[in-house]
Structure formats: C-alpha cells, structure tokens
C-alpha cells in the first residue's frame, strides 16, 4: 500500500497551500513594508523550490546532475542580474 500512496506529494501539496496562506497574510494583515517583503520573498523561493523538487520531479531521474546544474546556473545569473541592476539603478545612483 505504501508504494501506491504518494505521501511525499500530498505533504508537498499541503505545505504549498500553507505557504500560499502565509503569503496571503501580507495582504490581509497590517505588516510593515520590510516585513511584508521578507515574508513574500521567503515564501516565494521556498514555494519555487518545492514545486521543482516535489512536483516537477527534479532529482528523481538519472539526469539529476544536469537538472541541478541548470537550476544553479539560472539562479546565479538571475541573482547577478538583479543585484547588478539594483547596484546600478538604486544603490549607487
């Protein structure tokens, strides 16, 4: 029976709903800007990671290596782009 019941996916599903609910709190309660932003950023990244690992099955096949290399490469480039842009247009303007 154990093989038939997708415990991991159901847990993941529940967790992703919790994450969504927490993100929604930002809208419904009266948080400061910094607080709200922090909550959104954290829930967003955890949510994305969860989706990739649990529902898009990264890491379950033999091309695990290339999938993770790809994701890290994308992350690095996205972070460089975002922080570079902030540096140019906001922090050092």
């Amino acid at each position: 029976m154990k093989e038939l019941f997708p415990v991991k996916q159901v847990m993941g599903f529940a967790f992703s709903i919790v994450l969504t609910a927490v993100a929604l709190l930002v809208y419904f309660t009266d948080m400061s800007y910094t607080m709200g932003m922090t909550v959104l950023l954290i829930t967003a990244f955890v949510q994305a990671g969860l989706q990739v690992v649990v529902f898009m099955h990264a890491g379950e096949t033999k091309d695990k290596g290339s999938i993770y290399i790809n994701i890290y490469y994308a992350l690095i480039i996205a972070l460089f782009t975002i922080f570079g842009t902030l540096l140019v247009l906001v922090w050092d303007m």
Partner: protein
Amino acid sequence: MDFFDRFAVPHPSFLIYASMVGIGLTMLAIVVGITYFKKWGYLWREWITTVDHKRIGIMYLLTALLMLFRGGVDGIMMRYQLSMPENTFLDSQHYNEVFTTHGIVMILFMAMPFIIFFFNFLVPLQIGARDVAFPRLNALSFWLFFMGMGLFNLSFIIGGSPDAGWTSYFPLAGNEFSTSVGTNYYMIAIQIAGIGTLMTGINFITTILKMRAPGMTLMKMPMFTWSAFIANVIIVFAFPVLTVLLAMGTMDRLFGTNFFTTDNGGMDMLWANLFWVWGHPEVYILILPAFGLYSEIIPTFARRNLYGYKSMVASMVVISVLSFVVWAHHFFTMGQGPFANSIFSITTMAIAIPTGVKIFNWLFTLWKGKIEFTTPMLYSVLFIPLFTLGGVTGVMLAMSAADYQYHNTMFLVAHFHNVIIPGVVYAMLAGMTFYWPKIFGFMLNERLGKWTAWLLTIGFVLAFIPMYITGLDGQARRMYTYSESTGFSLLNMVSFGGAAIMAIAFVLLVYNIYYSIRYSPRDIGNDPWDARSLEWSTHTPIPEYNFAITPQVASTQAFWDSKKNGHELFKGEIEKIHMPNNSGLPFIMSCMFFVFGFAMVFSIWPVVIVSLIGILACLVYRSFEQDHGRYISVEEIKETETRLRGAKK
C-alpha cells in the same frame, strides 16, 4: 492622425520611392517566375514544409546573405554621407533611419541567421544524429524568424522605418519623441523573430545533450558543437530578457503603461539596463560559434590536432557566466557612481582572459603546423591579429574612467566593427567557403575567394581604423554631418573608400558563387579538404537521413581516426530509419504571426484578435495531431547508398 495616413512613409524621398518600385518589381518578378516555371508545388513540398535540418539551414543561409546586402547598402550610404562635410545626400531623419535599420539588420537578421545556419547544418552532422531533437519546432523557429525579418523590412515601405537607434533607448523611443509607427515595428518584429531564436536555443541544447552518437562523451564533441552548445545556453538565458523588454516597450507605446517613461513612476534608464542585460550576452552568442568555426578550420589546414581542447571548453564555460555580468559597461556614463562602474570595469576586463586563452590556443595550433593557405584558412589567419586589435580597444573602453572620453564617439564604432567584422563576418565567410562543397557539391573558386578575403581586409582596415582616430578627436557617432572646420573630412573620405572596397569584395563573392556554379568541377568526393570531424564522413550530397549507420566515436576527431588510425566508424547492419514527416503548420502559424504583428504595429484590433485566434487554433490542432513520423525501408537506404557511392567517382 487619419487612419490611412499612418501607412504612408512619413519622411519620403526619391531614394525611398525608387527602392519601393524596385522591391515591388522584384517581388513581382519572383512570383511570375515561380508561376511560369511551375515551381510552387516544388517550393511547398521541398522547402516550405520541410523539417530537414539541412534545408532549414540553407534557408537561414539565404536569408542571412540577403540581409547582408540590405545592411551593407545602409552602411555604404552612411559612409558616403559622412565622406564630405556638410553633405546633403541624406538628411538627419534619413540618417537616423539608416543607422537604426543597419544595426538591427546586421545583428539580428544577418549575423543571427548566419550562425543559426551553422547550428542547423553542422550540429546534427557533427554529433552523428539524423536530425535535431524537435524537427517541427525547428521549422517553426525558422518561419517565425523569417516573418519577423519580413515584418521589419516592411517598415521601409509601409509606415516608415524605426529611427531611435538599434538600441532604441527611451525616452527617445517613446511615443512623445518617436511618433511614427517605426518603433512599433522594432518592438514587434524583433519580438517575433526573437521567439523563434529562443526555440532554436532550446532545440539545440536538447539535441546536443541527448542525441550524440554512441561513444561521443561531452569531452569528445567537436569544438564547433561545443561552441554551439554554449551559445545556445546563452540564448536560452538571455533572450527571455529581450522578450520581456520588448513586451514592456510595446505596452508603453501601445497601451499607455509607464515602464520607461520619465514621469508617473516610470524609469527610462531601466530600458538601457535591460537592453544590455540581453545585448552583451548577445554579442557572445555571435562570437562563440565564430570561434567554433575557426577551431574547425585552423586544425584542418594546419594539419594538426586542436591545441588545448580542455582549455578551449573551459574558457567558453567561463565566458558563458561572465558574459552575463558585464552589461553595464555599455552605459558607464549614465550617472551611476564610481563604485558600480569599477565593478563592471573589472568583470569586463576579466572576460578578456578566457578570450586570450583561445587566441593562444589557435596560435599554438598553428605553431609547427604544416599550414596550407586555402581561403577559409586565409580568413582565419587574418582574423587573429585583427580581432586581437578589436579586443585590445575593447579593454580600453572597459576602463570606466577613460570611457567617458570614448563613449558614443567613432572610437566605439571602430571597436565593435573591429570585433564583429574580422570576428563574426570573417568566420561566416570562412565557414561558408569551408562547408560549401558539403552543402552544394562543388567548391567555390579558390582564386576568387582569396581575392575576396584580401579585398575585404584592405577595405576593412581603410574603413574602420581611421574611425579610431576621428573618434579620439571627438567625432561623435550617429551625427549625420559635420563642418569643414572639424578637420574630420580626410579620414572620413578614406573610410568611404574602404567601405567601397568592401562593397567590391562582396560583389566578388557573388560573382564567385556564380562562377563556381558554372565552372567548378562536381567530382570532388565526400571530403575535399581532408578534414577531421564526422560531418565529412557522410556522402555528398548528404542523404536525408545523414548516416545510413550511426557512427561509433572514440575521440574528438573520429573521422580523422578512421582515415589514419584504422578506427571503424560504421559498425553493424543497415536498419530501417525513423524520420519526421513534413508539415505546413509551422509556416501557416508563422504567417498568422506576421498578420498579428502587422495589425499590432498599426493597432488594428479586430485583426489582432482574429490572428490571435488563428495562432491558438494552430496550437490546439498541433496538440491533437497524431503524427508518428515515417520509416525509410532498408531497401530504399541501400539503393540510396549505392547511388551515392557511385556518384563519388
């Protein structure tokens, strides 16, 4: 503005009318010609619906050559306008349009299809595959690209060309300062072509990762395939930025959003920033495949193994990351502080290191090689010093403090032509000459080819080196004229002379093609250059399935090993081969994209909606379509093989 007024070219001149008539007549002649010779069916069956990577490649090549001439005429016009002070050949508005379209056409519609031609034609052959991973998607890529190209060129006849520079900086490109539909064309035509390119990127990454012949590990791939792989990775990561950027620009122009406006919370500098987040990786997308081609040509004619395979690969991987972290060097003068500028100065200089590694590797390959000066080799040998010069001036520009002096002068123009022409254009011409016999079954004439290479080089040096000097003396780029007292006239006249010599070189290239079609011998075998990698191991002309038996690979130059070291390439029996079916859907869908784009440019909403529904209908149809491809039977393969083997002698 009255509805129909927008379709008229806002700033016409005799030249524009004359070329309109010219274009009209040529189109008519082509249609009449095809009808007269009853070629419509042939065109539809063999080319428009094809999913064969070789044919799609050839269509990319033809588009690229066509655009090379379109952009070249722009270049000559600019040089003629600047050859004398106070020249009145072009007025300021026309000059703006000409340098804008020149830049876009050369980068996006000449250089891009040229490298994609090499991806298409070479990658499957080099890795011993029968086609790309998604042949149908490949056809869609081409047709989307083609329709984007067509739409962009239409601006010349209907509605007016874009005139805000190929960089199209806001606020200049906003509605307030660019009132004609020209910049709408820019946003939408490049968008459509760009989506095609993005698909190409995904397609080739998959092809290279999944479809290599048995035994070909990543570190045994030919160098061109490596460069194609890295370039496509950069495409997949850089082009989405362009897609989003153009979508935002379109919304600003058509729907009144305020992303790049100067009020209501918009930020015009964000355009420049995002443009170069795409734009700098883009230049590496162009140059890496060029490097890949040189890495195929130089070992072949130095008759030696490529020196430093591992460091070649490593340097490209490093470039693939570094090319994303240098973009701000394009706008050091925008107003950010010295801290940000210093960081981008340093990353930019760092990128010269992996590039330098590659230069040394080629030099070491040449060292002690038995060099044979064929036309492709001549281009490669000319490339090394000229490109190095361009790289060195690039490092000069990378020093942010000094860049305040160079920025937006002719010095910059000299720099990027200095890297693009000896880097990209020479590689394209060298590669084209090198692979011509494999593609068309005869060689281009060597004598004429060498003349072309030398003329091009003389022309290039005369046209662009003087710009370094006038740039340092303060001649700004994108200025349509200057006064006698500036003292720029002599050097600008020299530049025009150089540009004219380059034009002659291109005409010579066309003559060479014509001459070789008529007189070149056809019995050249499969491997006329005595080359090294797998693409030369199949027949000429290449059968549609590429290899009757999948090759076995044990080194980076499997074919060379099979010739010299008794490596057995084709083991086993011929089996039936699974091939994809042709399809008209990509073409039809792209036509709808064309209509969609045109309607967007002129904000004709009913047509926008109808064409969008059409595009969706094509997607839905495709989702439900059952198409499992077809098999080529063993008998048919055997028959083709005997016929082709016979043709060799």
